[in-house]
Every structure is written in structure tokens, then in C-alpha cells.
């Protein structure tokens, strides 16, 4: 555990140092950190603040503002499911309910077995092939029963 914490801090420091000289470096740092670790651990915020000469409160304020940043690690897979109007018009709400039952996780939840975290997203720009989702960065359109089963099979593998 001690080792893991040290690694996390080292990662945060490396990323922060890399972006330090750029204009507006905070979002690129947080994005890179989350890409690396799957979340933005609270304990890394002082390191980032110190590197950028900001207060911890300023950094925390930014982290807590944006929907993308997670404070805790997600499940092994992340499913972003669109909740916006174009997907609603194609039965998106029913698909969300079906997926929640099938995966054992609703919006903002992680399945008990840690297989998947389901996050709401407001539009993936796939509005002409709704309802849509993104599984671990891969886009999926026209979610039907077969696609739901495919998603379930993939996350539970």
C-alpha cells in the first residue's frame, strides 16, 4: 500500500512537471492523470497545486467542477451511456433500465463484482444512430437487445 501511494505521487509529479510550462496546464494534467490511473486521487492534489503554484482549494475546485473526474477508481470497464434527447427519442431510457438490470449497475454506480462502472453522458455525437454508448472509449450505436448482450458479455468476461 505504501508502495502504491508512492507510485501514485510519483506519477502525479511527473505529469505535473511535464505540463508545468504550458499555457493553462491544469486540465491537461488532470486528464493525463485520470487516463493513467483511472481516477484523480485526492492525495495527488497537493502535489499538483505545489507544482503549478496554486492553492489546494483551487485545484480541488477544478477537479470537483468537471463531470469526468472520478475521485475513486472505476470498475474494470467504464460504460458511458447517453441520456440526451436524441437517444431518449429512440428509447434510451428503456435501454438504460435494461442495462442497469443486466450489468447490476445504474448511473453513477459500479457493479458489486467490480466489472463495470456506468456513467451518464449527455451526447456522444452519435445522434443519428441512437441510442448510443461508449465502452472503454469504443463507440456503440443503435443499442438493441443484441448490443446490450454483447456489452454484458464483454464486461463480465
Amino acid at each position: 500500500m505504501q508502495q502504491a501511494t508512492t507510485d501514485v505521487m510519483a506519477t502525479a509529479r511527473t505529469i505535473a512537471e511535464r505540463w508545468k510550462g504550458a499555457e493553462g496546464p491544469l486540465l491537461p494534467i488532470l486528464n493525463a492523470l485520470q487516463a493513467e490511473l483511472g481516477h484523480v486521487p485526492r492525495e495527488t492534489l497537493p502535489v499538483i497545486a505545489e507544482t503549478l503554484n496554486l492553492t489546494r482549494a483551487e485545484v480541488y475546485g477544478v477537479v470537483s467542477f468537471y463531470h469526468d473526474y472520478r475521485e475513486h477508481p472505476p470498475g474494470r470497464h467504464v460504460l458511458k451511456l447517453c441520456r440526451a434527447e436524441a437517444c431518449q427519442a429512440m428509447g434510451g431510457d428503456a435501454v438504460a433500465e435494461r442495462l442497469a438490470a443486466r450489468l447490476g449497475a445504474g448511473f453513477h454506480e459500479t457493479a458489486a463484482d467490480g466489472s463495470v462502472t456506468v456513467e451518464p453522458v449527455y451526447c456522444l455525437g452519435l445522434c443519428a444512430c441512437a441510442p448510443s454508448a461508449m465502452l472503454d472509449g469504443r463507440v456503440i450505436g443503435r443499442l438493441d437487445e443484441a448490443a446490450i448482450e454483447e456489452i454484458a458479455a464483454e464486461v463480465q468476461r
Partner: protein
Amino acid sequence: MTVTVYVPRDSGAKALGADRVADAIGAEIARRGVDARVVRNGSRGLYWLEPMVEVQTANGRVAYGPVRPADVASLFDCGFLAGDQHRLWLGRAEAIPFLQRQTRLTFARCGITDPVSLADYRAHGGLRGLQAALAMTAEEIVATVTESGLRGRGGAGFPTGIKWNTVRETPGAQKYIVCNADEGDSGTFSDRMIMEGDPFVLIEGMAIAGLATGATKGYVYLRSEYPDAAVILDEAMAAARAAGVLGPDILGSGRAFDMEVRIGAGAYVCGEETALLDSLEGKRGQVRAKPPLPAHKGLFGRPTVVNNVISLASVPIILDRGAAFYRDFGMGRSRGTIPIQLAGNVRHGGLFEAAFGMTLGELVDDIGGGTASGRPVKAVQVGGPLGAYFPPALFDTPFDYEAFAAKDGLIGHAGIVVFDDTADMLKQARFAFEFCAVESCGKCTPCRLGSVRGVELLDRLAADVTPQRQLETVTDLCETMKFGSLCALGGFTPYPVMSALTHFPDDFRPRAVPQAAE
């Protein structure tokens, strides 16, 4: 001769299996030992036919779609490399009515070229606008854009040339071109399509904006929901830099312009230009009070152009063909073309670029083919989550900034989301408030609190608690939000709410509450 097969790498096509189709075609080419290659193009925007595969033949590009991996072997068996008949044969791509009826100016190359091949871009008329701009003074470039009548395609419709002129006239050692690629409106995907299908046109447009205003640095603020666009933009920028289109010496002119892509972090409000600037600076994406205008004090307090992707991507053709060419399309004060996006419950969903002036009914019924479900159209929401719901009774409204405003709506970023008769407009109105509550930046009270109160009022209405009073309070709340909010998020949420209330009053009447069986 090597036959070229095109399979889109557009994320809409990928969402429908284009990668697997491309792999299957590649494997089949290898297995059969035929002389053919696969090029990953952008999408033509006919999403009901995606993945749409095209083959270059002596008679033009022949299309097939929608292709599934299981269809690939039979396509080869039927001789699709020569453009021969197959169950999925669509004929010449350009002759498909949905494409033939369009006026593709901004999207002229999208779906035709390899999006990251600069040679392809040049061969299809690319960089001519930038070359023309390099031979002009900044004043002349701005005058051309102003005369073209181009207005901001992000939704506000502010004249692009006037904005550019303000930045040009404002002194500053460092000025910026910021491209707003935070395309958060549901039902819109034109920014995504052009960034994935023809990224060079955006790069060229940004470089021209730099020449016109004296800005040497550009940022594309791209939403995190578009990872595929980020990859393609990066590839295209690298190619542009290698060829001297970007960098310290644009096309050997001695003029400098370079750009980078910055990824957002999932906040709808960052599509508002001042919130976007704060986000780029590394802050919470909160809306700034105006004045000062971003043109005077924008990114890091410096003079900044903030333009939508489509506005910038429309500039190269204006510089190439001249202001009059572009201005001659359109109606009234809405000049040129606009890429309209047909989405939601629509039979022929996709991107349709046309001159302003077609009616909403033509677009939904004729071009879109009505609903995908086959049921009657109940409503269409135009302009994203802050746009009004229009009933078929208003389908004679022409697609034009002023005509939509006159009907208490907005064209926004030109997305049209179609709903069939199963839609519950009370639910849609409630969602508008809920969305505003989720995405509010929290800076102004009408938006931050009004959105939450709106949800509560509509819940009470749905539960039949003094319904008349709830309706009166919602109407009053909408007035407050409309006139008291700092930006369009709180200010325009009343559009979907009030349009639903006005045009679909039956959905807001007390409904039979299901009785418990016990």
C-alpha cells in the same frame, strides 16, 4: 491497377461496425490475393446506410450499405470491386438523392477524401483559401468574411467578420484563435463529422483567422466525448506541420501560425465561450460577465477570436471562391449554407448541408423520411437541449435565424431531433430543467436554483398537486430565467419548457394516476 475501397473511420460509422467491416475487407483482399487497398475516409453523413462502403470504379464511386462484416465475402463474390450489383448496391454515391439534393460547401470533401492525407486535401481544392488569404491584407480578409454574410454557426449567429475585425483592431502582443469544439448539443454532430472527415479544412480556417487578426496561436477546445476526433486532428496537425501549412512560416510566407488541441472534461457549459476560456486557462468552467468581450480580453486576458468549428471550416471556401459566391446562397440575413443534422427518431438520419431557407417540414418529412419507428411525428426539437420543441403545425417555418426566432425558437447549431407520438412532453420539459441543473456552472442564481425549482414544479404538476398554480409558477420562473441568467444555459432552458407547454398543453393536464391493486 489497384482498386481503392473506402470504409469510413468516422465514429458514427464505427459505432455501427465500420472497423470490423474494414478488417473483414482487408482480410478478404489478402485471402483472394486481389489488387485492392482500403482507405479510411470520413462519413458522407448518411447514417442509416452506415457503414457505407464505396469502391472507386471507372464510372465513379459506387456505394454499398449498410455493410455488416458477414456481407463482405458475398460482396467480393458479386464483383463489388468492379462496382457490380449486390443486395446492398446503392449505385453511384453522388447520385443518392440525399446527397444529390445537398449544397456541400463546408462539407465538400467530407466522406470523399482520406481525412489525414494532405495530398488528397490539395487534390480536392484544399489550401486555395489560405493561399488567397496570404496574398491579401488582414483588412481585406476580414472584409471578405464580413461581405460573405457568414454568421456564427455555434448558435448565436453573430457576424464572424465583425468579431474578427474587433480582434484585428485590438492591440496585443499575443492574440489567439480559439475553436469551440465543445459540441454538447444533443442532436448535433457536424463538428465531429468535419473534424473526423476533413480536419484540414478546420486547420486552414484557423490559419486564415490568424492571418486576418494577427493571432499566431490557436487552440481547439475539444470535448472529451470525442476521442476519435482528437486522434484524427492530431494526425492532421502533424501532417500540416510537416508540410509547412502550420508553423513559423506558413506556405513559405514568413507568417506564423500554430495550434494545439485541448481536451475538456465533460461540462456542457464549457460550450459557452467565456466558460470555455476559463476552462482553457485551467479553471472551473464558469461563465464570465460581459463586457469585456473575449475579442478585447479573452484567453489570458488577451484579444481572442472564439468561433465554432463550422464557422471556421466555412472560411476557406469563402476565401477561395469569394464573398459573393457564398452570400448568394441562403435567405434574408442568413447567408450561405448550414449543415443540418437530422437525428433521434428519424428514418434517414444524417447530415444535410443546404442553403438556408428550406422549411422544417421539408427537412423532417421529405429529407428525413419521417420517423424511424414509422409512427407519426409528434415534435421536433431544433437547436439542442436549449432549443424549442416544434409541432408539425409549425413545419412551414423556414430554416433561418430570424424565422425561428419569430416562432419563439432558435436554430442553434442546426440539430433537429425527431420524436414520434409516444413522446411525453411533460417529461421532455422536466428533462430540460434537470439537464440545466446538472450542467449549471453555478455562477448565477436563476440558472443554479431555477433549474432545480423547475424540476420540482413539474413533478408536482405531474402528481396533480394544484396544477394550475404550478403552471403559473413555471411560466413565471421561465421569465426570470430567460431575463435574469448570465448565459444561454439558464437563459434558453425556458425555450424547450415553454414550447412544450404552449404547443402540447394536453401533456400537462392532470392524468389518471394508476391506482394500487391492493
